[in-house]
Structures are given as structure tokens and as C-alpha cells.
């Protein structure tokens, strides 16, 4: 899906936990996330800390969307 959307010219940032799969399918901008059932959260944290963690990951993703890349890049 990442590839087909990027093919149309959109920069796509792939946020996922199993980075080797993302590399195999051909994502170009990759953000490693927390865990398979909760990529953008952590139920062991307090709500406040969890949201802060999510904010950090989203910020990283936005930064990746602003970054020129010439090859598959794990941020």
C-alpha cells in the first residue's frame, strides 16, 4: 500500500513495528514504532506519558515527510 500510494507522487511515511517487513515491501520513509498491537501507544504508561510518546513519534514522522531521501531510510 505504501508503494502504490507513493507511486502517485505522495511522500508516505510508514509507521510500523516490524521494520524488516517495511523494508521488504519497499517503504522509503520508515519510523519504527512501539509494538505490534499498539504501534503508537503503550498501555503500561500513564495516559499523559503515552500521549507524549505518541506526539514524539508523530513529530518524527512529520520530520521524515520533510526530509529528502534518495533511498529507503529508517528514521
Amino acid at each position, binding site marked *: 500500500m505504501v508503494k502504490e500510494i507513493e507511486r502517485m507522487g505522495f511522500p508516505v511515511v510508514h509507521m510500523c513495528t516490524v521494520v524488516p517487513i517495511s523494508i521488504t515491501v519497499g517503504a522509503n520513509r520508515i519510523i519504527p514504532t512501539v509494538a*505490534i498491537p499498539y504501534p503508537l501507544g503503550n498501555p503500561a504508561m500513564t495516559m499523559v506519558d503515552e500521549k507524549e510518546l505518541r506526539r514524539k513519534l508523530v513529530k518524527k514522522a512529520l520530520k521524515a515527510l520533510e526530509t529528502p531521501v534518495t533511498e529507503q531510510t529508517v528514521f
Partner: protein
Amino acid sequence: MGIKIVHYINQFYGGIGGEDKADYAPEKISGVKGPGMGLQAAFGDKATISSTIICGDSYFNENIEAATEVILEMIKEENPDVFIAGPAFNAGRYGVACGAVCKAVSENLNIPVVTGMYIENPGADMYKKNAYMVETTNSAAGMKDAITKVAALALKLGTGEAIGTPEAEGYMARGVRRNIICEDRGAKRAVDMLIKKIKGEEIVTEYPMPTFDRVDPAEPVKDVRKAKIAIVSSGGPVPKGNPDHIESSSASKFGKYSIVGIDDLTPENGETAHGGYDPVYANQDLDRVIPVDILREMEKSGEIGSLHDFYYSTVGNGTSVNNSKKFAAEIAKDLLASNVDAVILTST
């Protein structure tokens, strides 16, 4: 006892549990378990599965290096003649685990390895060069056939018997070239092939070219503060009640869902349709899968230009590559029409 074999399976086939037990740490038990029984029956007295290693699929994929190390140690203690993993069919995390463990065993312990999975399993592309990987059906309905082929390869590897071609033995080509004697010389074979081709007859190449399907990275957005961002996910996020009935695996469709007026996802307005991971955490707070809450705040504070009014979602669990391509092409068309600048795609 013949050939000594160690077998690797996941928490499901190990009888530990389903997705709720996918974080199960590696455990070694003596003897056979689950599909190991079928393998043992196929071996008869020619080989014995001395022990079985069970590991949760999420545990393995979230801790690839550490889990591999522990499992490698367990296998080393047994010192088997052959190592077998799976078969994993179309279970993605299981396939990756089988492939990764096979690669580690082959490289570090120099023990022959056999596994099996469906051709579209991500583990296939990643590891088919590192193991004899039997091509299976996409579901466990093909267990019997998979077991027969895996067992035959394991016995041959254990006794040092020569392994036939990928076509003859049913494993995926590993890109290994071997010299063989042909009756006709190369020039004649090439001309024969050309004539067949001109006649429109079917030809079989002697050296298939690898296929690389890569998309060049798109240009970055100049300034996210002015950009319209859209969310797409293969983690199955849907409005509460899954209105389009997106299937929990092998999805036949995607959904497009409005988030107009939604600042936060809650158990009341969102859940996951995905059947390939423990849904408890996503159902408690779907922002853990698609970060609507944060992007909404960033939209208000001006950190992003705007958040697209809709998110797009499907279930990546066992969904065919063809369907995924089709969904994404349709989604991309819609994004284009909506003047979206960039996409955050989340996967579980």
C-alpha cells in the same frame, strides 16, 4: 533414532493460545507438538523430533535479535542434524520468525534448515535464500501437502542425499546456480527457444531475471505547517461497529471514514477490525493505531496545515498483495482529488 530434528512453531500451533498469547517468550519442550506430530508420522523411524521450540509471533517480531539469540542457544544445546520451522502458510509474523530463525541456524550453527510458507508471506521474500522454503497454500488447509514436502526435504538433508530442483522438490528457488550436463549446447538451446517464441509457443527461460518492484521516494513536503496530511492504515481501524464489515483477515475491501469533529478516538467511536493481533489495546484507545488525537492538536496549534477529513483503512492480515495494490490505488486517487500533500501510513 535416525536423524535428530528440532522443530520451531508459534504460540498458536504450540497450543499456548491465540493473539492474546502472541507475546509468549521462547520455550523449549521435549518431543513433538502440533504440526510436529504430522512430521513425526511422515518420518517414521527415519528421524526423531527431539524437541520443539515455541515462541509467540509478536514476541519474536518485536524482539527479533534477542529472541533469535535465545532460540539459537536452545537449538545449539540439542545439536540436531536438521532444523525445521513452521510451516507458516500466510501468517506474516510467523513466516518472518521461521525465516529469521532458519537464517540464524544456518549461518551460526551450520545445520541444514527447512521451512514452509505461502509465496506472499513477507517472510518468503526476506528469507527464501536462507533456507529450503517449501511453497505452501495460504492456509493450514494445505498442511498435509506441506508436511509431506518439508519431511522429504528434511530427510534428504539429514542423510546428505542430493536435493533436486525447486520444481521437483516443491521449494522456492534460492537463486543458487548449479552446473548440469545438457544434451544440446547453449547456442542450439537458445535458437530452439527463439523459434518457439516466434511460433508463439510457451518457453521456459533457463535464467529468470529477478523482479525489482521499487518506487522512488517522492519529493518531501516543503513545509508540514502548510501541508494537508492524511492517515491510512493496514491495522484495521474502523468506526465502532465496523460499519462496512471489513473482514478480520484476507480483507476484500477498504473503508473511508470521516473524522470531522472528532478530536480523540475512544472506545465509543473507534475499534479495530483486525484479527491478526490482540485487539484489546486498540479497542481501548484507537489513537494507539492512528494518531488522530495528536494530529488534531497539531492542526490547532499550526504544526500541520490540516488533517484530511477522512482516514482510509483496511486489514493487512493475510490480505493478498493484489488486493492491497488495488485498495491503495483507489485510495491514492481519492487523496489526489482531495489535494492531500502527504500520508502517514500505520501498520500493526
